[in-house]
């Protein structure tokens, strides 16, 4: 299934009624790496969470491959995320008391038994490719770069078509950040996944196929790069 993104008349409001984000129209082809840049508080993260079906007070349509998240129930959206979307966050959000393997295989905890083994295998495979040892050690002692790699393995473990990353390098130093974004982009390209990464970091969006800029809740530029 090819999960192209099509947004129509998306509008997200704050509880006060103020418009936080307005996207009249946007299409992203499946397999594309899309960077989202813009100043703080411009609505980048709101945009990203809306794409995952986590937005509140929104109207319009966000369709992945024809499935409009906006008309789905919260449980149906959760099911869509479970099967099609992997997420990476700024501060990793790992379970500190669990090992790298257990963290990466977290999506297996709420999947059917048959799928559990597949997820665990995939998580281990990604960890291997990212050079993370996944013995019994808990991630408490891991460095930031190692943690974010575990988070990437978790995002890819359920083999989703889409990876959404929210400031994936913001908690890392320059050198680590560069290596991490390289790894992330390499992984999603190898597997032909769609990546949408929100970031301040030029090192992130210079590696993208296409970069949009959001300012004050609106897309102000849309640039396709030739890699």
């Amino acid at each position, binding site marked *: 299934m090819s999960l192209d993104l099509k947004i129509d008349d998306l509008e997200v409001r704050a509880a006060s009624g103020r418009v936080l984000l307005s996207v009249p129209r946007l299409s992203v082809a499946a397999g594309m790496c899309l960077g989202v840049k813009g100043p703080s508080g411009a609505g980048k*993260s709101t945009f990203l*969470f809306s794409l*995952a079906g*986590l*937005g*509140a007070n929104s109207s319009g349509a966000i369709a992945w491959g024809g499935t409009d998240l906006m008309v789905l129930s*919260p*449980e149906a959206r*959760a*099911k*869509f*995320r*479970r*099967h099609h*979307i992997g*997420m990476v*966050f700024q501060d990793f*959000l790992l*379970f*500190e*008391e*669990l090992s790298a393997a*257990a963290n990466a295989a*977290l*999506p297996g*905890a*709420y999947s*059917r038994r048959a799928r559990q083994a597949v997820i665990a295998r995939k998580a281990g495979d990604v960890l291997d490719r990212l050079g993370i040892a996944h013995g019994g050690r808990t991630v408490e002692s891991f460095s930031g770069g190692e943690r974010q790699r575990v988070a990437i393995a*978790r995002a890819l473990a359920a083999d989703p078509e889409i990876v959404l990353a929210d400031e994936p390098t913001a908690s890392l130093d320059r050198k680590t950040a560069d290596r991490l974004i390289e790894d992330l982009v390499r992984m999603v390209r190898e597997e032909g996944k769609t990546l949408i990464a929100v970031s301040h970091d030029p090192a992130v969006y210079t590696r993208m196929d296409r970069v949009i800029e959001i300012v004050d809740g609106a897309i102000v530029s849309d640039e396709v790069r030739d890699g």
Partner: protein
Amino acid sequence: MNPLAPLYRAIEWMPVLAQDITVLVVLVMPALIVGALVLVGFRPFPLVRAMLWRFRWTNALFVLLIAVSVGLGVGLIAQERGLRQGTARAADPFDLVISAPGSEITMMFAAVYLQPSDVPLLSGEIYDEVANAPDVTLAAPIAFGDSYVSSPVVGSTAQFVTHLSPDLAEGAMFADRLEAVIGSRVDLALGDSFTPAHGVGDAAEHDAHAHVEYVVSGRMQPTGSPWDRAIIVPVEAVWEIHGLANGHAPENADQLGPPFDPDYFPGTPAILVSAEQLYVNYALRAQFTTDRTMAFFPGTVLANLYSLMGDVRQVMSIMAVVTQILVTAGVLAGLVILTRLFARRLALLRALGAPGRFVFSVVWSYAATLIFSGAVLGVAIGYGAAALISRVVSAQTDILVTATLSWPEFHLVGAFVSLTVILALVPAFIALSRPVVTDLRS
């Protein structure tokens, strides 16, 4: 009324053990059903373990709170049963006691538990009448009043010693006026001799019987009663050293034990009566309930005390149950606050697409784990407390009180777990209603 009465009525035909197990199953059934419904298809335990470990000290405190409140209820029940069994076992050889009219409780404490008391004597005619009543198998005088160190010295007969201890642990029955059989915990050895004091405790006159020396001839088996500290001597000796007739006519002056001659019988504070025919006990009790005599079953006196004790225990049990529920409600309220600490993790799970029911099951399992651990630890605490108190009581009263765990405690704990794991659904619902994105970014 006991809400379980209809259930017990329905399963009355089963063996008692099966009844108790059935009741336990019925009591924990709600917990099992809720658990099954919440957990079906999920394995939240690795995450729950992680959360438990993350806040281990807070969790340990919660578990301890629950455990102490559960232990209170368990300990109460176990302690009451221990006291009942211990005092009943100690009174077991005393079916029917006849004495001068007075307080049954005072007399029971004096004759059965050897708590000294100044009581009037029964005459030789009465003793004769009791001893010669049809079907009486044992009519033993119990002549207390003297002591040696902390041991009461009681005058009675060889038959009475055999009644308390069918076989002696060592040595032989007294065969002579100045021989004595001692209780299992008396600090004397066979062949030791001692001089009794007149009276008991601080009021004892130590030189009143200075010219008398008993020799220990035998030792009884342990009975778990104050009689383990007693020294039993021939009643004739007690009479003689008090300067009284010795129960026998001058021509039989050397006789030991019954029959006694009413004309030379100085009196006894109490008579222990034993009869094999069931109705004879009741007949004698009626026959000797007169203006000169009092006849009572120590068993009845105790049973009445137990029913009082049971009422007190019941009131305290209700308080203990209320405490348990309040503590658990407090802990669950604490959990609602604690789940805010978990809020990011729970939000993460939901952002990754975990079903709401999975998140629900994580929070519930977490709460249920605390409750269950608290309940198990509470049983241990309750048992430990009861064992400790029992030891103290045994040491102070010489009545062997042993703490045991039995079905009522497990029923209580089962009901507690069922009730509280259902209450634990509340924090799980509350956790589920939190906003995902807000929690994720907090």
